[in-house]
């Protein structure tokens, strides 16, 4: 699961023990990145 720190904009990977915190700057707000999967949408 990849996230992006909202303060330092670096990619962050969370592990089981670290809690929700950016390891580079300590910011606690992380943004989830959109998946790179191709999304199929029906036009309706």
């Amino acid at each position, binding site marked *: 699961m990849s996230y992006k720190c909202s303060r330092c904009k670096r990619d962050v990977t969370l592990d089981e023990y670290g809690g929700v915190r950016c390891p580079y700057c300590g910011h606690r707000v992380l943004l989830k990145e*959109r998946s790179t999967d*191709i*999304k*199929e*949408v*029906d*036009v*309706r």
Partner: protein
Amino acid sequence: MDEDYEVEFVERGDRKALFLVRGVTPAFANGIRRTMIADVPTLAIDEVRVIENSSVMFDEQIALRLGLVPLTTPPAEFDEDDVVTLSIDVAGPATAYSGDLVSADDMVQPADQNVPIIELKDGQRLELEADAVLETGKAHAKHQGGVSVGYRHLQRVEVVGDADEFEESEPNIVRGVVEIDGELVDTAEFDNDLTQKFPGKEVAVHDVEKAFVFHVETDGSMTVEELVNRATDSIESRALELEDAVSL
């Protein structure tokens, strides 16, 4: 339809036409109108595969907008199950237009190049692939080839005498094309108001039996001529189908 009928064009363009048909019943006139709207199949985007969408809009909203872009549909080239793939790749800062769509088939192109899809800011990007399918307007309005299709009874205007001297003159509004002394006259010439054309006269306006003025506009997927022809072909094939079904 055993009696003769005639067609006279008042205005004839690729996308818009105005023509008079004489000798058809109201039922037939309405039948053609409805067929042009609902039964002539056109191509439109029906499925979208989003590779990247970092714009401010949801994928579904962009898909809906793409679906409404008219695509040129050459007659008799495609069947119901055919799929044409189009793609678009625009990076901001720019506006993604329908003209940015790249089609896998040269015959199928956006009818207009300047339909805005979305404005992209710096760092935003839209990349996707779309499948266009052939369907009729019955299934979804995006497949309507004829937009703004309608007809009016042709009206005949006759001068029946002088207006009363002290009568208050009220506007006498007619629309479209009217017949005056056997000539077709565009009502815009006299501001749609018969009292301007015949000041101080009393006029009578009557519907002309079995004469209809059609105005037909297409979304650009085909010309008006193709649309009318394919609409009548559709009526004919279904009439024959019915004939076959009821005959033993």
